[in-house]
C-alpha cells in the first residue's frame, strides 16, 4: 500500500487536491449548509469531485470531512462517526484502481478557544479525538485552515495519542504574516517541529503571489516538508469568484519550487482544472532545497525569542522566600501572579520562569491554571519550573508554543523522566550540572555532566540547540572559590560544547551586604564568560540595565537603538530620582501642579481627584499619626462615599469612580502592608463571591464591581467568567460566604443565573444573592430568586454594607 511518508521521500513534488466547497456550490449546495452531510445524502456528488481531482493528477485527496465535528454537526441528525466514515468511504471508492491516498481532512472546530472564546483546550482535544478515531482508516490526517496555534496543538496531540496517522498541518496567514489570532510563521514552525509533524505549511486566505514572502520565511525555520495550498487569488464579494485562472495559478505556483516547497495544491476557488495545470507545470521543475537555520529559539503563540544574545528570564513568579506570593497561592489569587507577569515584562523580561510549588497547594492544578492565565494576558514565552514530572507534563500540555523546561540534571533518574517529556512536547530544556553526588566543585566536573546531559538529549532526538546548561551559581560568602569555577564552566560549555547557558544570578550574594552590587557585578562577569540566559529580578534596574548595557558593549545592540529606547522607557521609570521632572507627567501623580495647597494634600483630595501616588504617600504619612481603622472609617470610606454619591447624581462618571477606587486601593495596600508588619489581622469587612455566570464572558461589569468592593474593604473571591453553577456553590460553602454577586449580560445567559441561584438554594446555603447586568430588571431579579438587584457597581457596595454593616 502507498504510504505518505514514502511519497515524501521518493517524489520531487507531491500534489494535493483543490477546493471541495467551491465544487459543491457549483453543484447546487446552498451557502451555510453543512457540506459533510452530502457524504450521506449525495455520495455520488462527492465521488465525482474526488475522481475529477484524481484524473487531474492529485496524489492525495482530502475526504469531505473538514467540519465534521460534534459542534458543527450538532442537531443535524447524524453522528460524527457516521459522517466521517461515509466521507472516507466515498474517497476510497473514488480512489479504486489508483495509487491515490486519502487524507482525513480536519478544519477548525468553529468556536474560539479560551481566552478569546469559551472552549477549553481539553474540550478541543476531545472534539478532535472523536474525529480522529472515526477517521483513523485514512492514510494521513491533514489539519487545515487553522488560525489558532493552541487549537492546532490540541489537534496534533489528539492525533498522536489516538492514532498512528502521519500528520500534515496548514495554517492560514494574512498579509502581515500572522494568523487572525496573531500566530506568526516562526511560532508555527517552532511549535509544530517540536511536536513532530510530517509536513507543515500554509493554505487559504491569499493567492500564490502574496504567499511568496510567507513561505520564504517558513523555509528558514524548518526542514519539515512544506505544503502550499493557496486560494485562486482574491474573491469578489458580490459574485464570489476568484481573480486568478488555472494557467496563471500554475505559473505563479511554480515559483514555490525555489523556496523548497514539497507539496502543492489549491484552496478556495480552485478546481480540477487548476490541479491539472499545476501537475503539468511542475513536471519538469526541480526543487531547491532550503536548509533551515538551526538556532536556539523558543516562543509563545505570538512572540518568538531567538537566543542570539543575552535574554532576560524573570524570576519573580516563584514563592520561595516570598510571603505575599505564598499567601496568593494559598488563596488561589491568580491575579497576583498575573500582575507579577505584567510588572516583569514592563521591566524588560523576555522570558518568564513559572514556579508555583508550595506545600499545601495542589501544584499540578495551580500550574495549569497559572500557565493558562499568564498566556492569556502576556505574550512572552515561559520557562516551566517544577521538580515534579507530573506537574511538568501538565504544564507542557497546556502551554501554547515552545517553552523551556526547568529542569533536568545529570542524575540517571532525572534524565529518564524529564527528557522524554521534553521530546514529546517539543520544548527546550535547562540541564543543571549536578548529579547523584551533588554539585561538583570543579568546572571540569560540571562540564562533564553538561556533556552527559547533552548526549542523553541527543540520543532521544532532542536537538542540540534546544539544550541549555545551568552551571549553577554558589554563594560567594560561603564558597568564594566556587565563583570562578562556575564562570569557567559557563565559558567551556558555551565555547567547547556550543550550547546556550543559563544561570540564576541572585544566589551569589546571600549573606553579603550591598547585595545588588554583588549581583550585577557577577552578572556582568557571567555575561562576558558567555551567559545567554540570566535568571534575574528584572524589576531591579541595575540588573536589567546590566544586560541592556552589555548588549551595547558586546555589539548586539546595533547603534544602541534598544538601549536608548529602554533607557527612556524602562530605566527612567526605575530610576525616578534621576528624572524628577518627569514624575509629574506620570498619570496618577499630582495634577495640581506647582502651587499645591495644604488642603490638597489630604487623602480625601487624592481620592476625589484620582491621584494614586499621592494617595499612597499620604496614607503612609497618616499611619504615623493614627490607627489604620481610623483612616479607613473616617477618611477612606467617607471619601469614596462622596464620590459614589456624585456618581449617583450624575455629576461624576464611571471612569472617575473607578479612578477614585484605584486610589483607595493604593491606600488600602499601604494599610495592609502596615498591618502585616504588625502581624495584626487582615483588614476585611467580609468575604464576597463574584462570578459571571456559565456561558457568559462579558465580565467587565463584574470586574468593576470587584474593584469597588475591594476598595471598601471587602475581600472578594473572584471566580471569573463562564463559571459553572457548582463552582459557585463550592466557593460559598468552602468559604462560609454570606453574599454572592452574579452577573450576566445576555438574555441567553440569564438562564444560567437562574440555575446558579437554584443550586445555591437547593444546597441550603445561608447566603444572599445580588445580581446585575444590562438585560436584568428588578422584576426579573426577583423572579429568578435573587435577594438584591444592583443597578450599578455603586449599588453593589450599598448592598454589601447592608449585609456586613
Amino acid at each position, binding site marked *: 500500500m502507498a504510504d505518505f511518508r514514502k511519497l515524501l521521500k521518493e517524489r520531487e513534488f507531491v500534489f494535493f487536491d483543490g477546493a471541495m466547497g467551491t465544487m459543491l456550490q457549483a453543484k447546487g449546495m446552498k451557502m451555510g449548509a453543512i457540506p459533510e452531510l452530502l457524504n450521506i445524502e449525495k455520495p455520488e456528488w462527492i465521488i465525482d469531485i474526488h475522481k475529477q481531482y484524481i484524473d487531474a493528477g492529485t496524489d492525495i485527496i482530502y475526504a469531505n470531512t473538514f467540519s465534521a465535528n460534534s459542534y458543527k454537526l450538532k442537531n443535524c441528525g447524524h453522528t460524527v462517526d457516521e459522517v466521517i466514515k461515509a466521507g472516507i468511504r466515498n474517497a476510497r471508492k473514488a480512489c479504486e484502481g489508483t495509487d491515490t491516498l486519502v487524507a482525513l481532512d480536519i478544519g477548525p472546530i468553529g468556536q474560539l478557544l479560551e481566552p478569546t472564546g469559551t472552549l477549553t483546550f481539553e474540550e478541543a482535544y476531545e472534539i478532535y479525538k472523536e474525529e480522529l478515531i472515526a477517521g483513523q482508516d485514512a492514510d494521513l490526517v491533514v489539519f487545515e485552515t487553522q488560525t489558532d496555534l493552541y487549537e492546532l496543538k490540541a489537534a496534533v496531540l489528539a492525533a498522536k495519542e489516538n492514532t498512528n496517522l502521519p500528520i500534515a498541518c496548514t495554517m492560514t496567514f494574512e498579509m502581515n504574516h500572522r494568523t487572525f489570532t496573531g500566530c506568526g510563521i516562526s511560532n508555527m514552525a517552532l511549535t509544530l517541529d517540536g511536536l513532530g509533524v510530517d509536513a507543515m505549511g500554509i493554505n487559504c486566505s491569499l493567492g500564490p503571489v502574496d504567499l511568496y514572502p510567507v513561505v520564504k520565511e517558513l523555509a528558514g525555520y524548518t526542514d519539515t516538508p512544506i505544503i502550499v495550498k493557496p486560494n485562486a487569488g482574491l474573491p469578489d464579494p458580490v459574485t464570489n469568484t476568484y481573480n486568478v485562472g488555472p494557467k496563471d495559478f500554475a505559473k505563479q505556483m511554480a515559483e514555490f519550487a525555489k523556496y523548497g516547497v514539497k507539496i502543492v495544491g489549491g484552496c478556495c476557488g480552485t478546481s480540477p482544472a487548476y490541479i491539472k495545470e499545476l501537475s503539468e507545470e511542475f513536471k519538469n521543475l526541480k526543487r531547491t532545497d532550503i536548509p533551515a537555520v538551526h538556532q536556539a529559539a523558543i516562543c509563545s503563540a505570538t512572540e518568538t525569542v531567538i537566543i542570539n544574545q543575552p535574554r532576560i528570564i524573570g524570576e519573580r513568579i516563584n514563592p520561595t522566600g516570598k510571603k505575599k506570593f505564598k499567601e496568593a497561592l494559598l488563596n488561589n489569587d491568580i491575579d497576583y501572579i498575573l500582575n507579577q507577569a505584567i510588572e516583569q515584562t514592563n521591566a524588560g523580561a523576555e522570558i518568564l520562569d513559572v514556579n508555583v510549588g508550595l506545600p499545601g497547594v495542589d501544584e499540578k492544578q495551580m500550574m495549569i491554571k497559572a500557565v493558562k492565565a499568564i498566556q492569556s494576558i502576556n505574550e512572552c514565552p515561559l520557562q516551566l519550573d517544577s521538580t515534579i514530572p507530573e506537574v511538568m507534563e501538565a504544564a507542557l500540555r497546556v502551554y501554547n508554543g515552545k517553552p523551556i523546561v526547568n529542569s533536568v540534571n545529570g542524575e540517571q533518574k532525572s534524565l529518564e523522566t524529564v527528557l522524554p517529556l521534553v521530546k514529546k512536547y517539543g520544548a527546550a530544556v535547562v540541564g543543571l550540572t549536578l548529579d547523584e553526588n551533588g554539585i561538583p566543585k570543579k568546572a571540569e566536573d560540571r562540564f562533564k555532566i553538561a556533556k552527559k546531559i547533552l548526549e542523553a538529549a541527543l540520543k532521544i532526538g532532542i536537538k542540540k540547540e534546544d539544550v541549555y546548561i545551568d552551571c549553577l551559581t554558589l554563594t560567594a560568602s560561603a564558597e568564594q572559590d566556587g565563583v570562578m569555577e562556575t564562570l569557567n564552566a559557563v565559558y567551556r560549555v558555551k565555547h567547547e560544547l556550543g550550547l546556550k547557558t543559563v544561570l540564576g544570578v541572585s544566589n551569589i550574594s546571600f549573606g553579603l551586604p550591598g547585595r545588588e552590587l554583588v549581583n550585577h557585578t557577577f552578572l556582568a562577569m557571567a555575561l562576558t564568560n558567555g551567559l545567554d540566559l540570566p535568571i534575574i529580578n528584572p524589576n531591579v534596574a541595575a540588573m536589567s540595565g546590566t544586560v541592556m548595557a552589555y548588549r551595547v558593549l558586546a555589539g548586539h545592540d546595533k547603534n544602541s537603538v534598544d538601549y536608548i529606547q529602554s533607557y527612556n522607557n524602562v530605566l527612567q521609570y526605575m530610576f525616578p530620582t534621576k528624572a524628577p521632572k518627569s514624575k509629574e507627567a506620570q498619570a496618577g501623580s499630582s495634577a495640581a501642579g506647582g502651587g499645591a495647597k495644604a488642603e490638597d494634600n489630604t487623602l480625601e483630595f487624592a481620592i476625589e481627584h484620582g491621584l494614586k501616588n499621592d494617595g499612597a504617600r499620604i496614607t503612609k504619612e497618616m499611619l504615623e499619626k493614627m490607627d489604620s481603622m481610623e483612616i479607613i472609617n473616617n477618611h477612606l470610606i467617607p471619601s469614596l462615599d462622596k464620590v459614589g454619591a456624585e456618581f449617583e447624581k450624575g*455629576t461624576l462618571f464611571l471612569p472617575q469612580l473607578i479612578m477614585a477606587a484605584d486610589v483607595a486601593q493604593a491606600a488600602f495596600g499601604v494599610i495592609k502592608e502596615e498591618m502585616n508588619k504588625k502581624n495584626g489581622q487582615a483588614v476585611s469587612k467580609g468575604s464576597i463571591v463574584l462570578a459571571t455566570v456559565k456561558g457568559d464572558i462579558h465580565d467587565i461589569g463584574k470586574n468593576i464591581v470587584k474593584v469597588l468592593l475591594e476598595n471598601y474593604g471587602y475581600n472578594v473571591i473572584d471566580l471569573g467568567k463562564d463559571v459553572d453553577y457548582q463552582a459557585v456553590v463550592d466557593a460559598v460553602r468552602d468559604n462560609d460566604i454570606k453574599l454572592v454577586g452574579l452577573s450576566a449580560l445576555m438574555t441567553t445567559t440569564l438562564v444560567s443565573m437562574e440555575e446558579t441561584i437554584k443550586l445555591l438554594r437547593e444546597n441550603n446555603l445561608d447566603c444572599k444573592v445580588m445580581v446585575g447586568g444590562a438585560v436584568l430588571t428588578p422584576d426579573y431579579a426577583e423572579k429568578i430568586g435573587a435577594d438584591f438587584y444592583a443597578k450599578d457597581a455603586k449599588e453593589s457596595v450599598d448592598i454589601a454594607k447592608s449585609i456586613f454593616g
Partner: protein
Amino acid sequence: MINNEIEIKNIDKSEAIRYMGYKDTLPDVNMTKIILQCEQDLLKVIKPRYVYKVFDLDFTNENVCLNGASLELKGSSIKEHLQGCEKAIIMCATLSGDVDTLLRRNELANMVNALVLDALANAAIEQVCDEVERIILQEFEGYHHTWRFGVGYGDFPLATQKSLLETLDAGKRIGVCATESFILTPRKSVTCVIGLSKVEVHGKKSCDHCNLKDTCNFRKNGTSCKKSE
C-alpha cells in the same frame, strides 16, 4: 478591496465619552490625557476586518428566506424591518482578537484604562460598521437602505448568530465565531442585516424593539445609544 481589511486612523472620542456616561460635562485634563493615551494604545492593536454577502429576499414563507442560502431570518421584528426590501446585506465586522487581550491586561492592571478602552473600542466598532456600510452601499447605487438590524434585537433570535456566521464563512474569512451562548468572539464584533429597496423604506432606528429599553442608561439620561447627529 484587499482581503476584507479597512483602516481607521482615529476613534470617535466624543462617542466614546458618551458611552462612558458623560452627558453635558467634558472629561477633565487628567481624564482627557488617559483617553488620548488609550486611543493610541487601541489604534495600535485593532485590525478591522469585515465580510458580507448580498441576497435576494423571499417573503413567501413564514420566515424571511435568503435565496441561495440555508439561513432563515426568524421573528416578526426582522420581517417588519425588511418589509418592502428586495435584497438584504448580511454583514459581520470585527476589531479582531488583540483588542480582547489589551482589555484583559488592563482589567487586571488598570481598571480605569480598561473602562476607557472598552468605550473607545465600542465607538471604534461602530465606526468600522459605518465605513463598511458606506463601502458596500457604493455597489448599490439607486437603492434605499434600512438601518443596521443586529442579531438579537427585538425577537430576531440570538441563535441566528451561528448560521449567519456559517453563511458568511466568517470564521475562515475574518476569524469571527460564536460561543455556545451565541456571544461573538472576538468580543468587539458585530453582525447585522441591512435591507435594500428600490423604493423609500422606513429606516429610522428606534428603541421600541430594543431588549434593553427598560434598563438602558442612555434612556434614563433622556438620550439614546444612537449617535447624535
